[in-house]
């Protein structure tokens, strides 16, 4: 294991700024726990290898290629804010590989960068035996700044050089051996996206481990001030780049710039952004709809019939077992599974956008908007993550350097419409709006953005009115052709998460709902009670009047919202249970919804449906998001956010219903 560096010869990284650690709950301590508990354990005694590099340098892609795990990847800065860890096996040797959050340098400006610095600089069980620095050959000079700082520590260092193809297009040729000689550490060229050169990297790491820890790079003036140290580092980098590269001067036209002429244009950029998002949701609903219908027919027809027949053969027909299995688990979980094609399509399209590099442009396009609510354009990145799932989005606020900005962004994340809410939108909009369902869903996503802006503005001019602005500094990665392997991998990881929810939370809530629906209030026996006379309906009736001003104060509708507090996927399963039990008919949920909304709204079903959808959009997404907020911004702000979401959702629903009735 590496030992503490010799302070006489080594230029120390600058101290961590106070604002990086001024958090109520220090995220570093949490992340250190993550490091102690790996995603997949390595054999005891495996050498610890840390993977570091600039944001968006392809670290997570390399980590996945080396370990076979599925850490989150994307072609935009700030994709990795957590630490991933897993065994890296090569040639009979196993390394314990950790993927640290992206950092341009060991002078952190945000908590995720501070974590990377902390693990490399501080002595302790998490200090790596070898550091692999992933450097971008197309942006070599700036990639080497981190290398020079790592070389100033008493650590073994191996440079993994990627993006050689992009450098080649720009007329730049890199000689790894000459570069390695200039840097004083091995340099291995590779392509993480196509998994080329991974064996050579393992060999270089093994050779590095076989030798002792090399002497740190010494600076000419060990006691020089930070400015002089930086000058010395840049001179060192210039010398290394000169020694290790050849520029043919035949750089081809940059097609990334040409795309950006439109994609980041002051007027065209926002239009492109809206068109891209509309196309995603339109394609999702159009392509997935036939598959969804087929699955719906399958679960409500043959699967339910076969289960009922099997139970009848066992003498359990009409019993509580049939109620739980057919009307509960099959109806609830089956309803959720019908959304798998839709979710897969949306996850794949968003993964394509992320891998292409477009998301960083989306952050630039929305920068002005974000600035209006006191946040930098970079804050848009966690909000974009929120459109997939709010839980990682709350964690992704760590890319922001200012703690007040982090709290504000974490409070706004629940207003971004996550994919779980999409399941509710799809069922309700296809039932009530038919062929226009895709456009209504798109309108809901626009409404989601309006909620973020509106609530952000309100908070900016009240509780956050003293917060200073931070200028836009955002690295724009070159566009790249998405690869099938990465798109498929990201899609599968997210789909697996969706299915995990289905198998965990949904089964638990289905059982809880079934139990409440089986307990009679007044006359009746357990499991043999009409759902309207059950404890479930009685509890829902207590809450339902609150939603009467919004036009959906019926217990059948409101009960699903209460269950949906746990997770939005549970809204569908609870409806499926409620209506299946009510009429003994697992299918035709849409018909039941039409009747319920018409009755509850006094003959204004469409305004009531719109109000319901807006409420689903704006109220607390799930308990997992609350847990993530509690971890990131503390209990006090989490409670504030809970009240904020419920108040905004209720007020907006009431306004939508009443205005809708006037139209």
């Amino acid at each position, binding site marked *: 294991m590496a030992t503490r560096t010799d302070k006489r010869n080594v230029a120390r990284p600058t101290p961590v700024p106070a604002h990086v650690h001024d958090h109520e709950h220090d995220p570093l301590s949490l992340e250190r726990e993550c490091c102690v508990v790996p995603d997949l354990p390595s054999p005891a005694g495996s050498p610890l290898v840390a993977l570091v590099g600039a944001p968006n340098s392809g670290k997570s892609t390399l980590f996945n290629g080396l370990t076979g795990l599925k850490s989150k990847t994307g072609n935009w800065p700030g994709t990795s804010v957590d630490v991933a860890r897993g065994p890296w096996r090569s040639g009979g040797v196993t390394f314990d590989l950790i993927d640290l959050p992206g950092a341009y340098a060991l002078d952190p*400006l945000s908590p995720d960068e501070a974590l990377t610095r902390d693990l490399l600089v501080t002595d302790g069980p998490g200090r790596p035996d070898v550091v692999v620095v992933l450097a971008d050959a197309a942006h070599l000079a700036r990639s080497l700044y981190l290398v020079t700082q790592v070389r100033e520590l008493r650590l073994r260092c191996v440079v993994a050089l990627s993006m050689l193809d992009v450098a080649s297009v720009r007329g730049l040729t890199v000689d790894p051996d000459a570069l390695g000689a200039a840097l004083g550490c091995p340099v291995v060229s590779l392509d993480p996206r196509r998994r080329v050169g991974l064996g050579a990297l393992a060999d270089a790491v093994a050779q590095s481990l076989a030798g002792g820890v090399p002497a740190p790079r010494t600076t000419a003036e060990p006691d020089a001030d930070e400015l002089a140290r930086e000058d010395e580092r840049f001179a060192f980098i210039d010398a290394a780049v000169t020694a290790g590269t050849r520029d043919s001067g035949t750089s081809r036209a940059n097609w990334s710039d040409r795309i950006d002429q439109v994609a980041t244009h002051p007027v065209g950029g926002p239009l492109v952004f809206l068109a891209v998002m509309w196309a995603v949701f339109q394609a999702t609903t159009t392509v997935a709809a036939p598959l969804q219908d087929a699955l719906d027919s399958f679960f409500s027809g043959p699967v339910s019939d076969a289960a009922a027949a099997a139970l009848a053969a066992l003498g359990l027909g009409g019993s509580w077992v049939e109620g739980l299995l057919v009307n509960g688990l099959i109806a609830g979980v089956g309803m959720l599974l019908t959304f798998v094609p839709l979710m897969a399509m949306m996850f794949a399209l968003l993964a394509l956008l992320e891998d292409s590099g477009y998301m960083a442009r989306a952050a*630039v396009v929305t920068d002005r908007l974000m600035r209006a609510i006191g946040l930098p354009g970079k804050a848009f990145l966690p909000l974009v993550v929120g459109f997939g799932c709010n839980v990682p989005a709350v964690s992704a606020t760590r890319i922001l350097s200012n703690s007040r900005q982090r709290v504000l962004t974490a409070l706004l994340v629940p207003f971004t419409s996550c994919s779980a809410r999409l399941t509710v939108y799809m069922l309700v909009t296809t039932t009530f709006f038919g062929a226009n369902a895709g456009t209504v869903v798109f309108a809901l996503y626009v409404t989601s953005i309006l909620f973020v802006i509106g609530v952000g503005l309100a908070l900016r001019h009240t509780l956050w009115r003293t917060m200073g602005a931070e200028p836009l*500094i955002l690295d724009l990665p070159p566009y790249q052709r998405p690869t099938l392997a990465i798109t498929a991998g990201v899609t599968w990881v997210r789909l697996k998460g969706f299915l995990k929810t289905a198998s965990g939370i949904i089964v638990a809530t289905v059982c809880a709902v079934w139990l409440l629906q089986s307990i009679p209030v007044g006359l009746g026996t357990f499991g043999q009670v009409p759902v309207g006379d059950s404890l479930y309906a009685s509890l829902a009736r207590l809450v339902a009047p609150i939603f009467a001003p919004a036009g959906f104060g019926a217990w059948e509708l409101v009960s699903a919202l209460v269950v949906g507090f746990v997770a939005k996927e549970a809204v569908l399963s609870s409806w499926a249970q409620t209506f299946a039990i009510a009429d003994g008919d697992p299918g035709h949920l849409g018909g039941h919804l039409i009747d319920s909304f018409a009755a509850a709204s006094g003959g204004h079903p469409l305004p009531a449906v719109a109000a319901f959808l807006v409420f689903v959009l704006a109220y607390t997404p799930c308990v997992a998001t609350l847990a993530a907020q509690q971890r990131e911004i503390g209990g006090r702000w989490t409670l504030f956010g809970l009240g904020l979401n419920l108040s905004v959702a209720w007020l907006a629903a009431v306004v939508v219903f009443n205005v809708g009735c006037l139209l």
Partner: protein
Amino acid sequence: MTLMQAPLNRTLVLVGSTLDATQARRLSALGLRAGAQLRLVQRLAGGARVVAVAGARVALGASLLDRLTVEAAA
């Protein structure tokens, strides 16, 4: 002239800044330090610009551009 006043698509040299140390260090890490050659390649909303430096593209806000001094490359 400041980078805000500089024309698009001309090769420029960064000669100075009035940024605080933290922002200056962040820009340095992105290749934007005194002596670096750069080029403005795109106007963005709100006066921001995309800067081409060392083969990379970095979006910089208007308030930052005003505090960076450049001159035309020889």
